């Protein structure tokens, strides 16, 4: 069936895949908020939310309902269009990244082989960088359009923090890309699935550490949550926001956390690779094998998300000059050093 020279079945297949992935991301982010409160409660030795439903499992729905039902306030002195655009952009940028992530191996359904990845594009990881660098617009536009000094200060902080740490993040990844020799995320996972090939974290421990720290900074998570430092800036860049617009900002943070966990798992921890298990020998398992891979990826992601929360409730926030010093005087030179050493080792091994 081709009309306008488009393969409509492919289009429908991709649309279903996009819908599933986006709703799954939203659902996971929803329950991440719940997990965050529970983890915080456990670390602080208290029960946490336990009223709504069994073990408080309906708490995120109650929270969501509360946010939706609250009154929408747009301040009179704000720039109305940009005020609404801010949270929209934050949410779009958070969700767009999931397009290039390989969620699992191919599955066979209705006589079609479906890759569990929306687009395995040639520039893979660069696309992620492009979208991440756009995420800062959501914060900046929202903070400026609120016409509030605290919001503006927080937005500027957020933007300068994101730009500073993007640099170290990019350079720490270059070392990894020199090893893999490709930017396609699907290809990077397949290389790690080879039986005689370890996960990339073994080859790039320093690169992974740098990437992890930068991911914390990019997600505005503690200890880098300077843009929402309550004691200095009241509430940060979303001070003037209420109802679901505030909800979108908070929610985008959790989606960012989820997506960056997925990317770390994909790049450094083998993605949907099942550890100590040779997938190639069990190809006859078909769809079940692909499903096991997806579950395996999700387990890795949950561990990363737990780590994010663990750090948040353990380590206090940096001061702003410490943050900048760490970014420019520690992370960047270390990333450059890592890149140089990796390059030298690759050259030496090839000779």
């Amino acid at each position: 069936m081709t009309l306008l020279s488009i393969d409509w079945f492919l289009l429908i297949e991709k649309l279903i895949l996009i819908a599933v992935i986006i709703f799954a991301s939203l659902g996971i982010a929803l329950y991440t908020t719940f997990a965050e409160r529970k983890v915080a409660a456990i670390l602080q030795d208290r029960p946490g939310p336990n009223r709504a439903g069994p073990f408080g499992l309906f708490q995120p729905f109650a929270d969501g309902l509360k946010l939706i039902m609250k009154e929408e306030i747009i301040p009179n002195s704000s720039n109305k269009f940009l005020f609404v655009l801010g949270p929209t952009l934050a949410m779009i940028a958070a969700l767009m990244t999931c397009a290039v992530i390989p969620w699992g191996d191919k599955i066979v359904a209705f006589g079609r082989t479906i890759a569990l990845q929306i687009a395995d594009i040639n520039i893979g990881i660069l696309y992620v960088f492009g979208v991440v660098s756009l995420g800062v617009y959501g914060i900046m536009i929202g903070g400026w359009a609120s016409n509030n000094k605290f919001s503006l200060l927080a937005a500027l902080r957020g933007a300068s923090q994101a730009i500073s740490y993007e640099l170290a993040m990019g350079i720490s990844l270059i070392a990894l890309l020199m090893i893999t020799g490709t930017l396609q995320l699907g290809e990077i996972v397949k290389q790690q699935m080879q039986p005689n090939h370890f996960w990339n974290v073994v080859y790039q421990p320093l690169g992974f550490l740098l990437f992890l720290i930068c991911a914390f900074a990019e997600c505005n998570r503690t200890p880098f949550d300077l843009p929402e430092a309550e004691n200095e800036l009241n509430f940060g860049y979303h001070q003037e926001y209420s109802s679901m617009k505030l909800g979108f900002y908070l929610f985008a943070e959790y989606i960012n956390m989820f997506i960056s966990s997925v990317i770390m798992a994909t790049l450094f921890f083998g993605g949907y690779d099942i550890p100590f298990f040779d997938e190639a020998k069990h190809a006859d398992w078909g769809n079940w094998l692909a499903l096991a891979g997806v579950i395996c990826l999700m387990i890795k992601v949950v561990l990363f998300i737990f780590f994010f929360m663990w750090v948040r409730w353990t380590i206090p926030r940096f001061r702003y000059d410490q943050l900048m010093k760490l970014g420019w005087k520690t992370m960047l030179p270390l990333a450059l050093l890592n890149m140089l050493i990796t390059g030298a080792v690759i050259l030496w091994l090839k000779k």
Partner: protein
Amino acid sequence: MAITEIIFWFLSALAVISAIMVVVSKSPVHSVLWLVTVFFAISGHYILLNAQFIAIVNIIVYAGAIMVLFLFVLMLMNLNKETEPQKNLWMKLTGVISGGCLLIILISLIRQATEIKGKIAITKTGDIGLIKVLGKELFSNYVVPFEISSVLFLSAMIGAVVIGKKD
């Protein structure tokens, strides 16, 4: 009309309209945001030509970094209508005339250029824009200009640090 053609016309219209809005917008912050839209439309054109690397680098560098810095500066400046200097009518007129002259020269140059005459841009195919080919090309045939430009960037960076440093 093929789907590529529809996308082409849509992106072209978007690019031209946003570019006009950059100039027409009253608020400088709006101008910057329209400029970001222009960059996106141009990146879309690159993708149509299958130059994926240039498309994404255009977004990362221009939309993601340079325009953020522009916004940064504009948001810190207090740009009220009262503080804006009154522009002379004659100044505007000379601006329009000189801009129009430049446009005429550009159009006539493109019309006369024999190298591009009768050539059609290859859409969807061609792999020169893919990162592997581009990288090999840059580091073999064009390695000297590439390295010289990187030295130029380095000297610009050092210069900026020296100027920015308080003595």
